[in-house]
């Protein structure tokens, strides 16, 4: 029996409390995916056409620095969202994302969802609010990271 992804989407914090009719629309753009440790999920500079709701595992979001290697900016785990560049022009990834632990996720087709957001403006507004909240949280966390709060003050 094929199980629909709708209940899984409904349980994810990103879509928690979302109107059921919107969930039915979104599920049409969703599919189950799995990634093995070491696999790249996103690559800097490539087209951002998907985002992921992580169900299990761990992924690092990295930036490659010549002569140093990949520096991890943050990690995402179960219950979190990977990727927002699909929502904002020019729809291009700014970082790499590599799997640290085997990962199960729901992949959402960004192009498909952008089209649906244009068609169903209220749903689009709701999604924009939810992604804005994630973007702000990540921005604030990065600002705190930049403070180097555990470093020695001279």
């Amino acid at each position, binding site marked *: 029996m094929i199980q629909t992804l709708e209940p899984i989407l409904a349980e994810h914090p990103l879509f928690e409390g979302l109107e059921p009719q919107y969930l039915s629309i979104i599920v049409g753009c969703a599919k189950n995916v799995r990634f093995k440790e070491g696999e790249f999920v996103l690559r800097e500079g490539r087209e951002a056409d998907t985002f992921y709701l992580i169900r299990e595992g*761990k992924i*690092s979001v*990295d930036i490659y620095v010549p002569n*140093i*290697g*990949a*520096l*991890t*900016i*943050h*990690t995402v*785990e179960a*219950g979190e969202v990977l990727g927002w560049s699909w929502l904002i022009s020019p729809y291009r990834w700014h970082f790499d994302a590599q799997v*640290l*632990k085997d990962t199960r996720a729901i992949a959402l087709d960004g192009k498909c969802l952008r089209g649906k957001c244009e068609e169903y403006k209220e749903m689009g507004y709701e999604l924009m609010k939810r992604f804005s909240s994630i973007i702000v949280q990540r921005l*604030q*966390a990065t600002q*705190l*990271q930049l*403070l*180097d*709060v*555990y*470093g*020695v003050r001279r």
Partner: protein
Amino acid sequence: MIIDPMLPTQFSIKRKVIENHDTFTFFLEPIEPNNSFSFLPGQFNMLYSFGLGEVAISISGDCEKSLPLVHTIRAVGSVTNAMKVLKKGDVIGVRGPFGSSWPVDLAKGKDVLVIVGGIGLAPLRPVIYYLLNHLNDYNRISLLYGARTPEDRIYIKELETWKDKIDVLTTVDRTTKRWHGNVGVVTNLIKKAKFDPKNTVAMMCGPEVMMRFCGYNLRDAGISQQNIFLSMERNMKCAIGFCGHCQLGGSFICKDGPVFTYEEMKQYLDLREV
């Protein structure tokens, strides 16, 4: 207990453990064999490096084992840098214990969140020991630990053993690809921890800016401000509320603290003038 609070007692270094590049732990025994020592989790001692001066350092051992007296120290100033080069058999002066303690009794029957950043794990290690010794008295226990890098973490082997009994979530601010754990600020861990906000006591220690933002997150998660506790740090001299060096508003950190409720301290956490 030390009778005259201004008179240091001589303690000898029985063992020294290097925790990381700038942090070390002393295991101390009194020179006079009849001297015992008891303390509450969260209290601190004034440690005296002869000829240089004193520093306030939290006690980081098990309060149910009177000796050795355990102190984890980060070498950041003249006194602590002098202590860093001391070795087994060397002697330092100890005054204490001083100050208020973590609310381990209030937390009984509740979920417990212990949130620490950097060297802030040391003042809360006595709480971890106490909780581990009395696991049945508490609900879910979570330790959320933020460090600068994986190499800056302290008590690394113990952290692994604690994972068998309590939830231990660790994150670092920066790293290379060798680290497969979490990367990000410690506030990110709060939403990953399992707790009932209506029945949780949170205890946190770390840089004030870290505690300020953790305070916002804990409040937003629904934990009452009376059930959020933090340890404050100021330049302490006398440690008994006489000299005023550590005064913050109407409180002396040495005597009224260092452990306060968030409700008592929140007004100072984002006040630029203090």
